[in-house]
């Protein structure tokens, strides 16, 4: 049986870091899946986001919906300098926050890149269940993904894994 879902890179932190990067991502896969179960040093303003290929220009946009336990909402934002994974959720100081991000057709050089993100935190600051679609307006193949903890840091025990999916 062909292996069609395999680890590309994985990181479990054993110290505090402000970013986690997956670099030199091979173009050999069809799609990517980023799985994260991080822990923040502080929850306030720990809005997780990514940047592709270190692009910090205003090439990102997102549309999301969320439920906080008491309020449902939906919104969008355009021309951002980062690709948020969330609408309002934050990385918590325990490992309650989790996220699964699907990045389809990431290595083509013809189209802009879109991603879908499911993030959760049932307890803590800004707790919510969310669905989000984001776009990076670039035709470049994605070779580098950097993950940020808002203006804060990820701490020891945070896990990040990038999987590749093969169509063949």
């Amino acid at each position, binding site marked *: 049986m062909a292996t069609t879902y395999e680890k590309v890179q994985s990181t479990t932190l054993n110290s505090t870091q402000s970013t986690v990067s997956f670099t030199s991502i091979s173009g050999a896969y069809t799609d990517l899946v980023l*799985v994260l179960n991080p822990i923040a040093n502080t929850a306030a303003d720990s809005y997780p986001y990514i940047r592709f290929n270190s692009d910090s220009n205003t090439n990102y946009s997102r549309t999301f919906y969320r*439920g906080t336990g008491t309020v449902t909402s939906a919104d969008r934002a355009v021309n951002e300098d980062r690709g948020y994974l969330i609408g309002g959720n934050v990385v918590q100081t325990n*490992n*309650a926050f989790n996220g699964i991000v699907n990045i389809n057709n990431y290595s083509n050089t013809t189209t802009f890149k879109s991603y879908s993100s499911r993030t959760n935190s049932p307890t803590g600051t800004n707790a919510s*269940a*969310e669905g989000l679609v984001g776009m990076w307006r670039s035709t470049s193949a994605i070779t580098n993904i950097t993950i940020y903890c808002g203006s804060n840091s990820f701490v020891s025990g945070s896990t990040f894994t990038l999987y590749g999916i093969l169509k063949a």
Partner: protein
Amino acid sequence: MANTYNLISSVTVGSGGASSMEFTNIPQTYTDLLLKVTGRTNKGDLYNDLSIRFNGSSSDFSTLGFVSTGSGKATYTTTSPYVGSINDTGGSGGSNIFSSNDIYIFNYRGSNFKSVSADSAVERNNTGNDEKGLYSTLWSQNTAITTITLVSVGYTLLQYSTACLYGISNA
């Protein structure tokens, strides 16, 4: 090349139904677990809560749900171990209709609390009877998960309900 996405076990409910679908002696060799479920109960309603138990426990859970029926939406928190909705027999559309549930369990053998992301869909090609849900669940226990039980409390899971447990490895 490492094989990172493996079927651990699957369950299909037989004739007569079952009170639960259960996985025991889960190997402690993966990073995450993924449950894919299709389900239907004997409750005479539209849909019912799908609940999970880890190591036989239904305690120490926190769940935040966000559901849309197409015409409305709602969000809530509960200490019940909900991970989705499951079809019942009360809705229209016939007996061939089952829910679709994906339940992702992060770092299931780690020493931290266990974090779960779940999506569920109950669709009947009907106005107002259907539901799409996002669920965020935390089990505030540090012990490794070795047994998973799926139930719809108080009701019977009907024949052809299925659950497949996959192990996902980052090694």
